[in-house]
């Protein structure tokens, strides 16, 4: 089944005012930033209220959408003419955009609430909530916009919010550098997205999703491949996929709620959204969709390998995020059969990864902001709620039977196996590595001996932090089953992204090769982690490690590659330019001036001030003239 036609909304329900979803958090951000210090006392409450209000609008819109018939589940809400004759700004309310809107506002609100507690000692808490609200508004614009221009504005907006929040503690040089890095790497991706949009505009004369429907086939296959690859470049930048992955691990310099909201649950999934939303281009070009799956597979393995060697709990989780988004990207590259699993995994991942990031934040909060897992250990008894919720997230991500990740990740792997054995098996291998690095994290943090610093006094976090954890872990338990069983989510998304010709069968516990082998590999990975980090003692100082460990610890030499391939040549180029400017351009101008100055400095010595010298030179001159005249014989 193809996606249904986008129609203009004519009703009088909540969908008509769905712009409120974007406007409310934007208003919140504006109030907090413009009024400044006056709002310090209640700023965080306003931030939470705006986010919650946005969530309420999203839920009401969702309810209204469910009340419509399947053929009418894609509603475009016209707002205003943005660029006359080119872009009409409007919102597209369909199952895909609303799924994202619910995730963003739902998980976003929980993280807002958690931040009240987490940032309670920070003098700049108000500014933090202003940026969070700005992020929510921009992210909602990204997913709700009914054209690429609006999407791009949101895209840049979340990039800005991400930059501001990674560098929130800008007095730390590492945070400032990480923010800059994220911003610059993202610009590379934005370049791809922009050029992709240019080509769409020149090929189809429109950037609106509604007008593009059914027109994609008009372009040549080369054009479609170019559009697909350029959009993928944009997606890679935002979603930290190879080769633009390097910024995500450094982005963990930001406060932990930021890592949870922006760099795990929502913003980094924008790339997956872009690929699914532009699905028509990828379906029309087998090259482009193949590259999407290759990028996905490569990233899911790279992220998993990086995750295995990180001692920083947040960086371990960041590697895992990369890896999980790799799964989503793989799913998104598989066409309508994979879209639903990709988005379902995205939503489930939004819950369990936010859950674990906030859990990690809770642990850090208790351990004086220590992030080195080698200095944790034995925390399960002191932080029972954090431990229990983290455990749920952990079981969900490794695909423990009947939890969220089990169904969503399995779906992606099964679909991948149908498309190509190699990608299927690599995805299964990635699942096994996930089992290892996540178990390693659990054993190092919550089990084993205490390896704390002397002045660490771990304690359970306040309820304003634990309640969001509990809610997120509840989502991590049941959401996967709910979305995948009876292909519920696939059918729900069908109006927006289409339906594959053959629906996958749902099993409560699948006994296919993929299902069983991935479970076996996960068990193997977890067992190995237990052998290395549970049974034997964890050294407080990281051992030197084998070549492989160092390889993973250095992020697979991604930074080194970027530095030697782009940064150093760039520096050389600037140095050459500076040299040319100093010596060439300036040298020419300065040299000319110096030559004239020097010559005249010597010439002026001729002016001695003695009148008789002048008289003598006049005499000589006259004699010379007379001699010359005589010589030419004019006299």
């Amino acid at each position, binding site marked *: 089944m193809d996606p249904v036609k986008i129609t203009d909304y004519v009703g009088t329900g909540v969908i008509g005012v769905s712009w409120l979803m974007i406007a409310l958090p934007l208003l919140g951000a504006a109030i907090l930033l413009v009024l400044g210090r006056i709002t310090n006392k209640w700023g965080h409450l306003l931030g939470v209220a705006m986010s919650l209000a946005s969530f309420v609008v999203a839920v009401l819109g969702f309810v209204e959408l469910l009340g419509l018939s399947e053929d009418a589940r894609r509603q475009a809400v016209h707002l205003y003419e943005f660029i006359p004759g080119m872009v009409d700004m409007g919102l597209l309310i369909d199952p895909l955009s609303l799924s994202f809107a619910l995730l963003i506002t739902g998980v976003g609100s929980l993280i807002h609430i958690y931040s009240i507690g987490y940032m309670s000692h920070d003098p700049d808490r108000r500014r933090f909530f202003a940026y969070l609200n700005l992020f929510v508004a921009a992210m909602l614009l990204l997913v709700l916009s009914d054209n690429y221009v609006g999407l791009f504005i949101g895209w840049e907006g979340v990039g800005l919010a991400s930059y501001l929040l990674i560098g929130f503690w800008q007095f730390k040089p590492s945070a400032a550098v990480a923010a800059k890095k994220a911003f610059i790497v993202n610009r590379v991706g934005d370049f791809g997205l922009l050029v992709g949009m240019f080509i769409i505009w020149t090929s189809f004369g429109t950037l609106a999703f509604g007008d593009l429907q059914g027109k994609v086939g008009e372009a040549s296959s080369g054009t479609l491949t170019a559009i697909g690859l350029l959009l993928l470049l944009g997606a890679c930048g935002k979603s930290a996929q190879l080769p633009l992955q390097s910024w995500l691990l450094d982005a963990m310099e930001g406060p932990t709620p930021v890592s949870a909201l922006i760099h795990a649950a929502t913003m980094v999934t924008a790339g997956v959204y872009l690929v699914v939303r532009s699905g028509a281009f990828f379906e029309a070009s087998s090259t482009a969709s193949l590259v999407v799956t290759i990028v996905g597979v490569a990233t899911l393995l790279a992220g998993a390998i990086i995750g295995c060697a990180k001692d920083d709990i947040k960086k371990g989780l960041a590697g895992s995020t990369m890896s999980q988004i790799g799964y989503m990207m793989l799913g998104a590259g598989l066409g309508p059969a994979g879209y639903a699993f990709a988005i379902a995994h995205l939503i489930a991942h939004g819950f369990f990864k936010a859950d674990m990031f906030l859990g990690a934040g809770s642990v850090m909060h208790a351990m004086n902001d220590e992030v080195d897992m080698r200095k944790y250990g034995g925390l399960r008894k002191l932080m029972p709620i954090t431990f229990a919720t983290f455990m749920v997230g952990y079981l969900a991500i490794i695909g423990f039977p009947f939890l969220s990740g089990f169904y969503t990740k399995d779906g992606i792997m099964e679909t991948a196996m149908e498309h190509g054995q190699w990608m299927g098996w690599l995805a299964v291998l990635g699942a096994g590595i996930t089992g290892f690095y996540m178990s390693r994290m659990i054993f190092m943090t919550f089990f084993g001996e205490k390896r704390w610093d002397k002045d660490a006094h771990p304690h359970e976090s306040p309820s304003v932090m634990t309640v969001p954890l509990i809610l997120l872990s509840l989502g991590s338990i049941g959401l996967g089953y709910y979305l995948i069983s009876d292909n519920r989510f696939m059918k729900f998304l069908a109006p927006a992204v289409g339906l594959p010709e053959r629906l996958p069968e749902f099993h409560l516990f699948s006994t296919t090769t993929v299902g069983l082998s991935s479970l076996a590999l996960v068990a193997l990975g977890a067992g190995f982690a237990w052998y290395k980090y549970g049974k034997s003692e964890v050294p407080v100082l990281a051992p030197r490690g084998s070549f492989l460990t160092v390889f993973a610890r250095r992020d697979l030499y991604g930074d080194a590659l970027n530095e030697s391939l782009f940064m150093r040549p760039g520096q050389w180029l600037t140095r050459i330019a500076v040299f040319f400017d100093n010596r060439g351009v300036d040298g020419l101008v300065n040299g000319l001036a110096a030559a004239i100055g020097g010559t005249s400095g010597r010439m*002026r010595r001729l*002016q001695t*001030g*003695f*009148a*008789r010298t002048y*008289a*003598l030179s006049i*005499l000589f001159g006259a004699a010379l003239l007379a001699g010359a005249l005589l010589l030419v014989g004019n006299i």
Partner: protein
Amino acid sequence: MTTQYLILSGLIFAIGALGVLIRRNAIVVFMCVELMLNACNLAFVTFARQNGNLEGQIIAFFVMVVAAAEVVVGLAIIVTIFRTRRSASVDDANLLKY
């Protein structure tokens, strides 16, 4: 005849030029300049006589007028310099240099 006049004119001019170059006293230098001018006048008049026309004589008058004007201005300058510096040496008035 003409040759003798011209030789005299050349001699007077040479004396004047030499005086300008080697004497320090501004008054003497000034007088030497007058010598050179008058040597030129002599040459003009000599040529006028030889060619039988008046142009050279007219120019001699012009030179005299200019010389008179020059004497007025030049002497005024020399007197002023002498008043301020108590010296009429041309080598002492050497401020106008690099």
